[in-house]
């Protein structure tokens, strides 16, 4: 179980890494569209902290937080952002297709909903192997508009797959609110008609989310049923890109102001202080993390691009 400080460090790592992206993005060297995680850190870290280290995860094009929380790595992360040969996929993937299969981060995708059935297949393989591994698939609430979400919910229930669905619910698909896309009540009421263990949360408190996730995971282990988490958060930045976009008119800055008061990093910092962790210790942590990130960015900038021939390799295993 991670300590409050450890949790804080992970939250901070994610936020700082994305601040690093924001800082350098205008240099136009990270030539990959950025779908930022900012605002969702507690959701991601909370769930991952409830999972075991060798459990497996899938994400979306919005997976900076997921990658960083799962791997702790920033070197390959930034190398991939800079499109360098030292990136996890030699620059072929970029921000939208992060993965680290060797560390249980099995895949992401820029097509909404697509990793959901893949995660079901991975979970099936684990079930067959009886290796007790859990698979968690993270997706936006927009994915629930897609038929494949429902197909996979059905399959997971039917075949009792060790699969945790994690809906990162920011209420938006690009700029269209869920109310203009979804004609149903709370999704958990629907999922409860399948054989599922379910929890929801609107918290930005990483430890509460972790507890929620843990509870569901325990029930899943007992019942052998799949699980479903719907976790609300607020997307701080524009859909794609590194900027705020409250001037675009589709949402009010006031929403952001309310959510940022309970910003997940802030909350956890307060908890640490409340728990008596000295401010200096936190500052030290933060400094160490920032240094690590700056170092990774430097390395990424210096690293070479993949050779021309790499364009044609890896089509077949």
């Amino acid at each position, binding site marked *: 179980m991670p300590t409050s400080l450890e949790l804080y460090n992970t939250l901070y790592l994610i936020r700082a890494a994305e601040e690093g992206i924001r800082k350098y*993005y205008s240099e*136009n060297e990270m*030539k*990959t*569209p*950025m779908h930022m995680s900012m605002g969702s850190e507690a959701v991601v870290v909370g769930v991952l902290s409830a999972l075991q280290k060798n459990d497996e995860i899938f994400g979306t094009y919005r997976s900076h937080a997921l990658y960083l929380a799962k791997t702790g790595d920033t070197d390959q992360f930034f190398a991939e952002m800079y*499109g*360098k040969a030292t*990136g996890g996929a*030699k*620059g*072929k*993937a*970029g921000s*939208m*297709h992060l993965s680290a299969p060797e560390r249980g981060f099995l895949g992401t*995708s*820029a*097509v*909404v*909903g697509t990793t959901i059935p893949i995660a079901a297949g991975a979970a099936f393989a684990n079930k067959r192997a009886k290796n007790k591994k859990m698979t968690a698939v993270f997706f936006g609430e*927009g*994915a629930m*508009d*897609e*038929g494949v979400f429902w197909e996979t919910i059905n399959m997971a229930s039917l075949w009792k797959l060790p699969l945790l669905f994690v809906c990162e619910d920011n209420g938006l*698909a*690009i*700029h*269209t609110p869920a109310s*203009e*896309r*979804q004609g149903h009540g709370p999704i958990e009421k629907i999922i409860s008609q399948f054989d599922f263990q379910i929890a929801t949360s609107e918290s930005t408190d990483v430890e509460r989310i972790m507890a929620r996730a843990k509870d569901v995971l325990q029930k899943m282990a007992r019942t052998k049923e799949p699980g479903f988490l719907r976790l609300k958060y607020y997307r701080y930045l524009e859909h*794609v*890109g*590194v900027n705020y976009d409250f001037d*675009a*008119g*589709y949402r009010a800055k006031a929403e952001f102001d309310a959510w940022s008061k309970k910003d997940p990093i802030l909350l956890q910092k307060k908890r640490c202080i409340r728990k008596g962790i000295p401010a200096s210790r936190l500052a030290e942590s933060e400094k160490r993390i920032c240094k690590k990130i700056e170092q990774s960015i430097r390395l990424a900038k210096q690293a070479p*691009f*993949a050779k*021309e021939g*790499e*364009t*044609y390799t890896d*089509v077949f295993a």
Partner: protein
Amino acid sequence: MKRLITYEAAINEALHEEMQMDPRVFVYGIDVADHKRTFGTGIGILEKFGAERFFSAPLSEEALTGFGLGAAINGLRPILTHIRVDFMLLAMNQLVNMVATHTYGTGGKVKVPLTIRAVIGRGWGQGFQHSKSLQSFFAHIPGLKVVMPTTPYDAKGLLKAAIRDDAPVIVLEHRWLYKQKGEVPKEDYIVPIGSSNVLRKGKDITIVATSWMNVEAAHAADILERERGIEAEIIDPRTISPLHDEPIFRSVGKTGHCIVADYDWANCGFSAEVAARVSEACYGVLKSPVRRIAFPETHCPTTRPLENIFYPNAKDIVRAAEKSLNLRPIDLSKENFYSHEHTFTGPF
């Protein structure tokens, strides 16, 4: 008086005009009604025609395609819009099994006036899931018409023709073209579906190019003319299916050489179709084999240097022409090839 407007504005005009003229026309699709309005092509429509005729939809490509078919056979003329053609892969079943066959399956009783617009092509580090073109897929299926306008003139004229067509028409718009300007009349006109266009006259070699590749072909033709005095004839089929191949055969009959520069994968692609047709129709006339330029047998990588290799450009066309004409490759190191970088920086 010439009126120069962008491709994006030309599409916008087509939509405004057709929606004004015909109350049955409506536009829908994922996120179409947001403030970005599909690269600006949808500006002002919501405000003018209301949310009943211009609305965003759930992320449900398969159902949205069937929805369009249902509306089309029941009195409306829907325009379904996809911000990336790649998402049409979620709707191939509706498109191929249902939309393409409906008229046939009813013994010709029912028309399907459905237009599907999709943005294609290279973006900015978009990677392998946001960079396809897929015209070869669509053209493979009987019952679907496929157009790829290159110029603002054609963008407006072909979209208007598509909307008025009683068959399903897929309109593929390359995102790099949106900011290109060209002459577009204010008056109502259409460009007939199934009419190829000679974009540039020449006598030495025929270049058949699709969509963005016409921009590259124009550049290649400039180089060939300037550097070697070779006059390339550029033919833009504009309609991929049904293909109007006569002008291509006529041109090759004159030049004896043919290059197909397509913006899709080569294997079983549109470039193969053109090459096969020209090789058959112009057998005995061809002074060199038809050469194909297309996407290589790999996926589009995200990182810029490899992405640059993935996408064919004017240089590839020059090199192919040199091969066909049996010339030694000239030095192109001083040549300034198109880079989107000059006009655009991220994140989209």
